[in-house]
């Protein structure tokens, strides 16, 4: 890392899509067209993450908790998320991870989710701004990222037949065993996620999400949305990420943070 370049926060406040558009206005017309397409689909805002290789996991995690926070029935959404996560712990063990390896990370994620309905030590339940604060704190934010990496890895390792045909070295193109793939490209901090990791994590968390591919390749400005685990119906706001070559952010249907109520 070049220390002289000021770094973007791990995850930032929502800004209007116009901010992203401005960055492409003097460069790529096809990106601008695609951004306009997204705005027309009412994706008017973007929450950006730092490009540190953890951006997929961090974007997804933030939005995963934010949807629970904004749920019409938060208590039920918290309960269902916690029960899914608790039920995934035996899978982590089956994948060969000792409790020592995952329990601190799980505790961190579990505590944030539970805080939606239960006040923490400071007697405050989670708000949008406290959620952002938590995800901007490297220790909390990275712990959550690591837990999602372990979940993704365990999902692949414990269902090798399902994933093995899709495990290739991202640069060399050679097939890899689930173990090699997971050690090198899932568990290792800062390694970018690809389609396989995304599929596995959607299944492990029992959520559906989609990724809008902003790649500048479409002549008419159309943007492809790739859906993961689309059969799952959870009654929550959609979780949509924005992909630009090598990077993920969160797409939002609003141009700024929700006003603080009460």
């Amino acid at each position: 890392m070049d220390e002289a370049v000021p770094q973007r926060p791990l995850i930032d406040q929502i800004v209007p899509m116009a901010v992203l558009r401005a960055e492409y206005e003097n460069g790529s017309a096809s990106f601008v067209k695609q951004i306009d397409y997204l705005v027309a689909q009412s994706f008017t805002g973007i929450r950006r993450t730092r490009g540190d290789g953890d951006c997929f996991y961090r974007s997804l995690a933030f939005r995963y908790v934010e949807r629970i926070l904004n749920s019409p029935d938060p208590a039920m959404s918290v309960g269902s998320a916690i029960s899914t996560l608790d039920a995934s712990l035996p899978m982590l063990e089956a994948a060969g991870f000792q409790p020592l390896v995952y329990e601190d990370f799980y505790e961190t994620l579990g505590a944030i989710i539970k805080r939606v309905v239960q006040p923490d030590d400071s007697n405050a339940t989670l708000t949008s701004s406290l959620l952002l604060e938590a995800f901007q704190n490297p220790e909390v934010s990275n712990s959550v990222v690591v837990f999602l990496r372990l979940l993704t890895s365990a999902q692949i390792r414990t269902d090798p037949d399902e994933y093995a045909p899709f495990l290739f070295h991202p640069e060399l193109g050679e097939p890899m065993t689930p173990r090699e793939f997971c050690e090198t490209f899932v568990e290792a901090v800062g390694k970018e996620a690809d389609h396989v990791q995304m599929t596995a994590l959607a299944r492990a968390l029992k959520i559906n999400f989609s990724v809008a591919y902003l790649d500048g390749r479409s002549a008419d400005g159309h943007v492809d949305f790739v859906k993961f685990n689309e059969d799952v119906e959870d009654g929550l706001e959609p979780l949509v990420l924005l992909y630009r070559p090598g990077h993920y952010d969160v797409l939002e249907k609003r141009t700024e943070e929700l006003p603080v109520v009460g």
Partner: protein
Amino acid sequence: MAGIASRRLAKELKEIHTQGCPVGIQLLSADNFEEWHLSLEVMGDSQYQGEVFALKFRFEPQYPISAPAVQFMVTDKYKSPVHPHVYSNGHICASILGTEWSPVLSVIGVCVTLQSMLASCKKKERPPDNDRYVRHAPDNPKQTRFHYHDDTV
């Protein structure tokens, strides 16, 4: 609440004390959550029969999210093993300690990996750039951006 490194290291230490270390690995000192020393011996047939090495682990507050700084100790008592990935100042060129570090690894996990790296050594020799590297090496091996000699360790 204690930081993430102390929480994790406290658990690792407890496990070492209750379950012991794998054969050939011993805890020399772990009096704080900043620096631990362990000894390492390769068991069975190997290039390093009869040699005992010592590893120094240094932890940042973000361990195990950030990799520990790990090196072989070079003291009156301990020498750096002669190995194609180990410099004479004890620094180790291994991707698991750099770009492929994962929080799944633990102190003992790193020791076991390095033990098997030594065990599989066919020819005792220093990395080709040893002299040049050692002359300018930083105190902390994590400040070096190694070009990994191969990706098998």
